[in-house]
């Protein structure tokens, strides 16, 4: 199984190359917001993991531990009415749009307080009122759907942007190709964000991909510039996010961003992630976006007490969401038959 470490090296080189001239950092308020988002995601997902172990989260669930900087950067950079399209690994992206923790936790636990009252589950988090247009569990489709939202924004002249997150493995499925080409031809206001965490489920992306950078090395096939960024650096991510969003809003068309990152845990609930070498895991744990960013804020003169207060706030929020979700009853069984069609019901006959 060649290359997962090799590629992780190659990748960080490419990243450092790309960031030779560092952009100016985001303003202090944004930086605090970025940090707060990351802390919230981390706290939420660690709790979700504990709840699996307690048998309270059923089915499957895919954590983004280690990948928080990407979702946080876009969460802070996006306009309130922009659209997010995410995958099954979408807790972070959902929280990033301001969706409260309780309904997300409730959905993971299949409770009536859940974002979709338990009908969707952890892989399909959706909150239209927050611009969270869905989490999609079959690889590829949502890139094409994001195009549709972008097309709609363009047609309606609203200058909204659609942002679509996906993994490295997704770059090898047909829908990726169709979506990128159409977005470029129609100059759609859409930003495609490939979170390259080096692995698909249990197979390294390098072993099944013809190019080293599965997204960036394909940008030119759609007339786009390659964009490689350190996805564990919230400031760098925020910079590419604002640039891509501005480009889309200005009518200059799509961007394809490849963000180098890593998931700390396994692919999904059941997976201990043992197929990865200790060295590789160590390397990336050393590049954890959270402590690095905390250090950077302290270095920039932010008071430790401010960060500690924010961390405590988030911890309380997580606790409260946990308690509320636990207290929420299971959904009414009537929901089995509701909303297959828009009359609210499931009747296919007269």
């Amino acid at each position, binding site marked *: 199984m060649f290359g997962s470490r090799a590629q992780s090296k190659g990748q960080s080189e490419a990243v450092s190359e790309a960031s030779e001239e560092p952009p100016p950092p985001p303003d202090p308020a944004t930086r605090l917001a970025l940090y707060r988002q990351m802390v919230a995601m981390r706290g939420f997902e660690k709790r979700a993991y504990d709840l699996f172990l307690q048998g309270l989260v059923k089915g499957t669930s895919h954590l983004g531990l280690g990948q928080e900087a990407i979702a946080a950067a876009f969460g802070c950079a996006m306009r309130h009415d922009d*659209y997010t399209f995410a995958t099954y690994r979408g807790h972070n992206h959902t929280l990033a749009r301001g969706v409260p923790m309780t309904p997300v936790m409730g959905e993971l636990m299949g409770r009536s307080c859940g*974002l*979709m*009252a338990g*009908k*969707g*589950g952890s892989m*399909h988090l*959706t*909150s*239209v009122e927050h611009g969270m*247009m*869905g989490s*999609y569990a*079959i690889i*590829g*489709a*949502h*890139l*094409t*759907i*994001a*195009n*549709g*939202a*972008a*097309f*709609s*924004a363009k*047609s*309606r002249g609203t200058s909204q942007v*659609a942002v679509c997150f996906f993994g490295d493995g997704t770059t090898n499925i*047909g*829908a990726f190709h*169709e*979506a990128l*080409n*159409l977005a470029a*031809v*129609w100059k759609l206001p859409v930003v495609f964000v490939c979170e390259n965490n080096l692995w698909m489920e249990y197979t390294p992306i390098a072993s099944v991909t013809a190019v080293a950078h599965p997204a960036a090395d394909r940008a030119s096939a759609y007339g786009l510039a390659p964009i490689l960024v350190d996805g564990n650096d919230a400031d760098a991510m925020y910079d590419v996010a604002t640039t891509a969003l501005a480009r889309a809003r200005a009518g200059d068309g799509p961007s394809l961003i490849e963000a180098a990152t890593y998931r700390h845990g396994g692919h999904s609930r059941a997976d201990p992630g043992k197929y990865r070498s200790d060295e590789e895991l160590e390397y990336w744990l050393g590049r954890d976006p959270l402590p690095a960013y905390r250090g950077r804020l302290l270095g920039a003169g932010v008071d430790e007490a401010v960060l500690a207060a924010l961390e405590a706030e988030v911890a309380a929020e997580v606790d409260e969401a946990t308690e509320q979700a636990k207290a929420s009853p299971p959904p009414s069984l009537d*929901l089995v038959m*509701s*909303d*297959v*069609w*828009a009359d*609210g019901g*499931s*009747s*296919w*006959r*007269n």
Partner: protein
Amino acid sequence: MAELTYRDAVAAAIAQEMERDESVVFIGEDVGAAGGVFKATVGLLEKFGPTRVLDTPISEQAILGVAMGAAMTGMRPIAEIMFSDFFAVSWDLVANEIAKTRYMTNGQVTLPLVIRSGNGGGSRFGAQHSQSVENWAMAIPGLKVVAPSTPRDVMGLFAAAVRDPDPVLFFEHKSLYSLKGEVEDGEILDELGKAATRREGKDVTIVALAAMVPRALAAAEQLASEGVEATVIDLRSLVPLDVSAVAASIASTGHLVTVEENPRLCGWGAELSSIIAEENLFDLDGPIVRVTTPHVPLPAADTLEDAAMPSASRIVEGVRRSLA
């Protein structure tokens, strides 16, 4: 009253809806400048311009993705899948995304979109351009499924499909495009889920869809000359399904024959038959006979294709079996 072809009725129906509602857009392969490979969308680009009528690459997944994303954000897109066989390259969008999203989001997302497609055999196009796939769609919860048999119904059902809040798969039959028929003037708007009784007869109920309707009527004529009076019901939509109309008819005739163009297994006829066998068994005075294309792909040669598809004489023979 005007006489229109089924083909022209498609263009007229799209135009009617695009004029009425600015949020209606239309996308597909060769649909704009070329007016569609079946010439069913001629003039729309000229009328509505390139921001509302868009030619796409050969990217069916991208087409349906655009339709879905646009529908969930306030538009009412119409997408074309040129031949219904090509649903197979974009079935994930249809079956897994478009059909399931309202349910999975507990009603947060509404998808008012129409996917229209050229369906069915009889054009000697061979196995990959001749399928009747309305049963693929019927098997997926969350879709509505419409298949008109006349120019007038194209107008009325298409308008209903566009205004419907749910995703509708609209199957136009390729061999009916040149069919002419009377269409009333002014707006025509039907209700989905209402079958039409095309002929009344006391002896047997024949249920058909799309291009099988004229064949069922031809069979009924032939049966009439033998003294057998058939009711012919045109289902018009499979979802919603007008079970009441069929059940009511069987209650008086006691005999049901379904006529399906799709290959035999798991078609709408099987579903309808199973409903009657569950709910109205004791109304039956004879077996429920399904006349279908056999469970084969469609051959290309004209003689073979004609032999494969249900003909009036096979329908007559099916009725005789039910009455025997």
